[in-house]
């Protein structure tokens, strides 16, 4: 897939505080690309830079073939942004909000009403289109803000913390909508989030940021290999484990490390599947009673915290 967005050695500072430092990454056409990191990691700053709202301290960017520094209007013409707060005009109706923004994105007058009706229908807001937005629930406001971001059928959509202020039900709704938007019309979605489960569920590739730096980038499978490589096994024993079992497992050929999670539960990293029978034999041979031995799929959360631990010297 062609890169739709490239960033090379991008740095930005607010006064003396560096918000981004030498960030290099690319997002490819048609993918849902995650920018994952804690608050203050530089995600929103990146979105602002990529849309030409801020000028970088150094580095280069290309978005949809344009340089946001000198061609911000062209970028914004072709991209849609959902800001962290819905940023809707609450004294106006949903229809008035969408109509206003449809003019600003340059939609021809004869297409406006049809497109607005389509979006209101898609986001389930048709019935309340002529109601003031102030009366909407948070979930409805977020859906309307999403509709606004999609008005001109943008090739690239930035979603900045789309579910952070929503209750679980509204979050699930918005996540489903993002998933369906991402699969429609070849949209490329850049999803900024600190919600790990959301990134794992929605994103094709993820860039993990910390303190303005890129910590890792790739698909979840690639991140697992970069950060926590190998095959992981969950081992659970019945009753008290035999004395010296952990040490005995650690020295087995093919075992990379044994993480003791509790007295009777271990997580073991091995080189390959051939080691699994050896572990079972060793536990049983020492008189242990094996309750469970199964492969463990490393989650994005584990990858994320392993990375943050490395960056923070084990403090995170």
């Amino acid at each position: 897939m062609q890169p739709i967005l490239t960033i090379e050695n991008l740095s930005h500072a607010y006064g003396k505080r560096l918000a981004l430092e030498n960030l290099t990454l690319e997002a490819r056409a048609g993918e849902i690309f995650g920018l994952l990191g804690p608050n203050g990691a530089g995600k929103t700053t990146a979105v602002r830079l990529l849309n030409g709202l801020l000028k970088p301290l150094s580095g280069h960017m290309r978005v949809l073939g344009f340089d946001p520094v000198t061609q911000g209007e062209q970028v914004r013409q072709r991209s849609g942004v959902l800001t962290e707060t819905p940023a809707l005009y609450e004294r106006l109706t949903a229809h008035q909000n969408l109509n206003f923004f449809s003019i600003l994105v340059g939609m021809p007058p004869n297409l406006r009403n049809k497109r607005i009706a389509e979006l209101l229908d898609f986001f389930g807001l048709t019935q309340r289109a002529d109601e003031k937005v102030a009366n909407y629930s948070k979930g409805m406001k977020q859906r309307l803000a999403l509709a606004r971001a999609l008005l001109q059928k943008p090739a690239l959509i930035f979603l900045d913390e789309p579910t952070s202020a929503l209750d679980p039900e509204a979050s699930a709704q918005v996540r489903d909508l993002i998933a369906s938007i991402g699969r429609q019309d070849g949209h490329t979605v850049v999803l900024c989030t600190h919600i790990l489960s959301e990134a794992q569920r929605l994103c094709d590739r993820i860039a993990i940021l910390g303190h303005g730096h890129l910590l890792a980038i790739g698909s979840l499978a690639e991140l697992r290999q970069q950060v926590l490589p190998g095959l992981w096994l969950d081992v659970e024993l019945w009753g008290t484990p035999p004395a010296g079992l952990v040490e005995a497992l650690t020295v087995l050929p093919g075992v990379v490390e044994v993480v003791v999670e509790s007295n009777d539960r271990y997580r073991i990293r091995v080189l390959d599947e051939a080691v699994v029978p050896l572990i079972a034999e060793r536990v049983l041979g020492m008189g242990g009673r094996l309750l469970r031995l199964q492969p463990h799929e490393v989650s994005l959360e584990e990858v994320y915290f392993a990375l943050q631990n490395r960056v923070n010297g084990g403090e995170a």
Partner: protein
Amino acid sequence: MNLEHIVAIASKDLLEVRQNTSAWAAMVILPLIFVVAFPLVILLLPSNPQLAGEMAADPDLVMFIEGLPPSMSQHLVGLDVSQQMVVIMIGFFLAPFLLILPLMCSTIIAAESFAGERERKTIEALLYTPTSDRDLFLGKVLAAFVPSVLLTWLSFAVYTLVVNTVGYSFMGRIWFPIPTWWPLMFWVAPALSALGIGASVIISAKTKTFMGAYQLSGSLVIVVLALIIGQVSGVVYLTVAVGLLTGLVLWIAAAILMTLGARSFTRSMLILN
């Protein structure tokens, strides 16, 4: 420059102001006081024969009228003292009060448009549109300028109607407006409107709330108060020449404030402040 964008931004801002009851209520109540209540009181009081008699016999009042400059006294020829007082009050002294209207209206709308939009955090979505900084700025200026000038002119029309209809039996003729009002309404009032907007833009860049911006920019009313005090104390009278000169000074001040305001109205500054 994209005219459609500018008009859309101005229309949206006005639509929002229309929904803000406290904002438009002030823009309705104050003009009604200035253009209906004030002239009615001034026209009805001298109709009282006892009061009219006292005024005619007041030597201070007679001396004050005799001391007026020719540009004013020429409008008093052939009138009795109480009629002269009506012309002085309605034709000259109330004029600066109407000049409060463009200033008040423009600062309310501009504060709502510039600071209010940041206060409600809607500005960021606007900044992510392809609209240029200049069109955003012009749209917001237009939203404040046009209604404030139109409101002033409408108030002037109502004032003219009230003065001539209610005062017809007392004055015996249609006498208002007098020439001094033309530069005030069509030269000074637009300048005050522009001045109020320029001040609001600069203040809104530093203040994050509508009320904060409105209160600070509203302090410009001191310019109009100076004109009121100047006339009452006899230091300066709002003749045609004074009106033209005052307007020129105000336009220059407004141009300076607008230029400074436009410079501070960039995406990077709006997103950071």
